[in-house]
């Protein structure tokens, strides 16, 4: 088997670690280069290095500052997201099933949609102060649009013959909504929810940074506010980079978790 032409053409088996090792080579090289650059700089707070970032991360985790801030930010994201979820789905179904509702609501939605969440922040702060309610309203505002638009899209894309089939089986209207319209648009709604969580997480960091600036670094909390403290008070870029990495990893984790949830909730699509 192993000799002759067949042996020559067969792909050579690789050890199990070969692929991950090759994937990790470039990032490790870059990290080394970054560390080398940082050690040539005089001020370690202005020139963050991998070692210092890691040390800061460990310190912040051990002191509980980072976990507490992270949980606070995550809590706000979930709170704002939950509100947007309910509102977006309910209004989305109403708009997707009723032409009258859609015609009435769509112009309003479309005129607010280009207004970035950060542009709403001044109003939120003036109305709700610098605490959690302001953060929640920004997050909710940001998460609302992807949820609404994807729900409307999903509901209006429901296969007409499925609705007709249900009607010919004598299924009452409300039950058709629950048993046909909702499951048929679930993939779209879940896509909207995943996008919404993504923008909600982006928005909360920006909102906490901005609220931190307004409140002078105190009070509001969250990982964004923590970054603001590193920026304005302790002036330590190592802390900021540590936060940035944590924020990125959390965003990735949220996305992965949600994709898993999507697979679980829509098993017929896989």
């Amino acid at each position, binding site marked *: 088997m192993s000799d002759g032409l067949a042996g020559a053409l067969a792909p050579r088996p690789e050890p199990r670690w070969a692929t991950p090792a090759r994937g990790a080579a470039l990032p490790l090289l870059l990290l080394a280069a970054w560390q080398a650059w940082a050690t040539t700089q005089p001020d370690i707070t202005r020139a963050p290095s991998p070692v210092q970032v890691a040390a800061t991360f460990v310190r912040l985790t051990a002191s509980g500052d980072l976990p507490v801030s992270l949980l606070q930010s995550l809590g706000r994201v979930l709170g704002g997201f939950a509100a947007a979820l309910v509102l977006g789905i309910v209004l989305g179904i109403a708009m997707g099933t009723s032409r009258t509702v859609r015609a009435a609501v769509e112009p309003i939605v479309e005129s607010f949609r280009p207004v970035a969440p950060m542009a709403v922040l001044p109003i939120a702060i003036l109305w709700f102060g610098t605490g959690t309610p302001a953060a929640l309203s920004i997050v909710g505002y940001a998460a609302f649009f992807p949820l609404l638009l994807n729900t409307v899209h999903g509901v209006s894309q429901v296969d007409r013959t499925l609705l*007709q*089939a*249900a009607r010919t*089986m004598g299924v009452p209207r409300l039950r058709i909504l629950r048993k046909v319209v909702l499951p*048929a648009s679930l993939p779209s709604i879940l896509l909207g929810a995943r996008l919404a969580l993504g923008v909600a997480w982006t928005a909360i960091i920006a909102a906490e940074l901005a609220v931190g600036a307004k409140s002078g670094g105190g009070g509001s909390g969250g990982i964004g506010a923590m970054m603001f403290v590193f920026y304005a008070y302790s002036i330590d870029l190592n802390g900021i980079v540590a936060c940035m990495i944590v924020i990125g990893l959390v965003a990735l984790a949220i996305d992965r978790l949600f994709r898993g949830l999507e697979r679980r909730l829509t098993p*017929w699509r896989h």
Partner: protein
Amino acid sequence: MEAPGTTDPKLRLKGVAKAFTAPRTLKRTLAVTGVDLAVEAGEFICIVGPSGCGKSTVMNMIAGLDMPSSGTIEINGVPVAGPGADRGVMFQDYALFPWLTVEENIGFGLRNGTPGNGLSRGEVEARVREHVELVQLAGSETKYPHQLSGGMRQRVALARLLANGPDVLLMDEPLGALDAQTRLILQTELLRIWGETAPQAARKTAVFITHDIEEAVFLADRVVVMSRHPGRVRAVIPVDLARPRDEHIRATPRFGQLSEEIWGLIRAEAYEAIA
């Protein structure tokens, strides 16, 4: 006009016409007009005609999914006012719910619609089970529609239709998407399920749309031939072939004659339709 005292047919269409108005241009087009037809209980009717002649339009109106622009449709002498589970529909693309398994699709009407009224949970389960077996899908109950072959999907749709226990079976080109061999097998199976071997009183009333003339002759008691522009009933051809029918009947001279006669009625239009 029928004589007083005669009982109503199972299904009657009287001067049925349907016009559609295009949403933007507001142009009205007459899809079907002047359709008169009486179908007796236990009869198997096939509707054939070139595509676009209004076969689906007629079926949707019988199902109550669409209202005639003029004329009336009656079931047992009562005008149709909307959809109802007394008339079961099998759609051309099967209309299976992609998020439900085979078993859940078959039981959908029984669990969510009027066919399940008055049935206990156990009775519903038994009836679903019975219909899974009727179409030989035991073992595939937990599969989703996308995991099934075309022939299996068609069986699920048929089982769902029958599990709901309708008096009238409305089928819109249900075998259209299948390969020729599967089609022939399912035609025979369909006749068995419809009740070909039972006395007429025990049979369902069936309205079956097809564009396949031989399929129509094989299945039907009468073939309704429609023509286009606008859709009308061109002729109603009684099929005097003995039941139960099997594959051999296709080779008989009478089968050929009937097919030829129907083809003669729609040949010119069928050529027009592809020109």
